[in-house]
């Protein structure tokens, strides 16, 4: 009886601790967002720093994005052909591949890869700068680390993400073309024609862009926040990096559902 009671009490204490730490985390994040907001516009007085980050975050993610986009397009082409050929509708392969990519897979898969490739790198870099007192040294030199280090990295993520997602979709459509038209013999004119006819630039393309922009904001924010608030130890850095990948992946998938329901739901 006593053991059961102790176990219950321990469980209750753990729950309370979890709630408390979650509340503290949320409070920290709110405070951080408020501080960051004030620096987002001033950061544009040094566009070179932002361009540097777009390079570090975006251009260096190109390889993984292009290769993944190609393979996803190939698989979509194969699966789509198999299903559509049952209904004698293989001429719709193009629009099926394109819509899947532009509406869903482009933004979501790019965001997941982006969180793993770029988000983790940003977190680790900032956390290490904090651990080695580089941020404190900057502060003592009267340079605001939020404006000099954090805001440009956030902007880099926000700008790079939609571009990468667009590229992912383009490469994917080309991959679908290769499998469908070149290998399996779908008519090239209907592959492109159906895409042109049925895809709505304002609905489908814009919604994809909005999604990828939102994901860019989320990943950028999580990455810089976790890095900036990492515990200054080696374990703290590794934890912060892991949290960035886990938290931003979950947020991306959850937000994708909400955004899809809002955009395409009845």
């Amino acid at each position: 009886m006593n053991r059961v009671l102790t176990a219950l009490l321990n469980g209750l204490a753990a729950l309370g601790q979890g709630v408390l730490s979650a509340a503290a985390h949320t409070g920290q994040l709110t405070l951080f967002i408020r501080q960051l907001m004030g620096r987002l516009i001033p950061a544009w007085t040094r566009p070179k720093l932002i361009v540097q980050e777009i390079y570090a975050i975006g251009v260096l993610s190109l390889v993984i994005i292009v290769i993944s986009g190609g393979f996803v397009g190939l698989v979509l082409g194969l699966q789509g052909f198999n299903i559509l050929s049952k209904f004698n509708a293989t001429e719709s392969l193009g629009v099926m591949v394109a819509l899947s990519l532009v509406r869903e897979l482009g933004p979501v898969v790019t965001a997941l890869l982006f969180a793993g490739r770029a988000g983790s790198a940003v977190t680790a870099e900032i956390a290490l700068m904090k651990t080695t007192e580089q941020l404190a040294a900057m502060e003592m030199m009267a340079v605001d680390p939020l404006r000099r280090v954090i805001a440009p990295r956030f902007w880099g993520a926000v700008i790079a993400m939609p571009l990468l997602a667009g590229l992912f979709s383009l490469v994917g459509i080309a991959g679908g073309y290769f499998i469908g038209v070149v290998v399996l013999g779908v008519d090239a004119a209907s592959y492109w024609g159906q895409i042109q006819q049925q895809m709505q630039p304002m609905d489908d393309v814009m919604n994809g862009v909005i999604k990828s922009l939102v994901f860019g904001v989320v990943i950028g924010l999580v990455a810089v926040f976790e890095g900036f608030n990492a515990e200054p130890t080696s374990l703290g850095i590794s934890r912060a990096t892991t949290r960035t990948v886990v938290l931003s992946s979950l947020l991306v998938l959850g937000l994708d559902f909400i955004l899809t329901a809002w955009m395409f739901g009845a």
Partner: protein
Amino acid sequence: MAIPRGKITAIMGPSGTGKTTLLRLIGGQIKPKSGRVLVDGLDMGKASSQALLAMRRRLGMLFQNGALFTDLTAADNVAFPLREHTRLPPALIARIVALKLQAVGLLAAADQMPAALSGGMARRVALARALALDPELMLYDEPFTGQDPINVGVLLRLIASLNQALGLTSVLVSHDVAEVFAIADCVFVINEGRVVAKGSPDELRAQMPHVPFLRQFLEGAPDDNQSQASQQSANYLANALGLKPPSDKRSALRGTR
């Protein structure tokens, strides 16, 4: 505590008494829970962030491990505050950087990355960086810790000569008694958050016999209660292992018989 202008003031004390915290208070990086820190009349705890930034441009701080930016070369590290705060042409910045590196004797290492520098060299590059904007007040956090004797000598001479040549006010946090006494004009010894002694090195030597903690600290004697503590931990260990403490040895033996 009052830190005189134009002098080298040392803050000494055992590890963990809040020496580095004191430097961070002076730099305004943390705010005091009570009391005030005035730097040239400005209350660092209550100052607006604008005033704080303006004041920090007049401060230089040497961090314990140097805190160099690891992705910039030594020269770019020194140029960083100049590029951030001035609109000087690149050629002039290069000239100033060369001068500052020359002052710490590391002009030859200008193009090295911080990872390629030894600990002592990194600290001197960091010193050049802290001096880049010609500060009025220099804060040194444990500048001698972990340095070989030659490096300590180099740093000592640098700190003293820079203070004199540039008319700086220097605040030095350290627990290296011999080194500090060689260059400091004024020394504060703190322990457990309080100033236990202050004065010039000579005055401190004169006070030494009368203040027990000061004598212990300057002579490097172990704590009086150290032996007590070790006795306690021995007892604790014996209890944990299920043995009786050593003083009860005889009765313990009797018990096993």
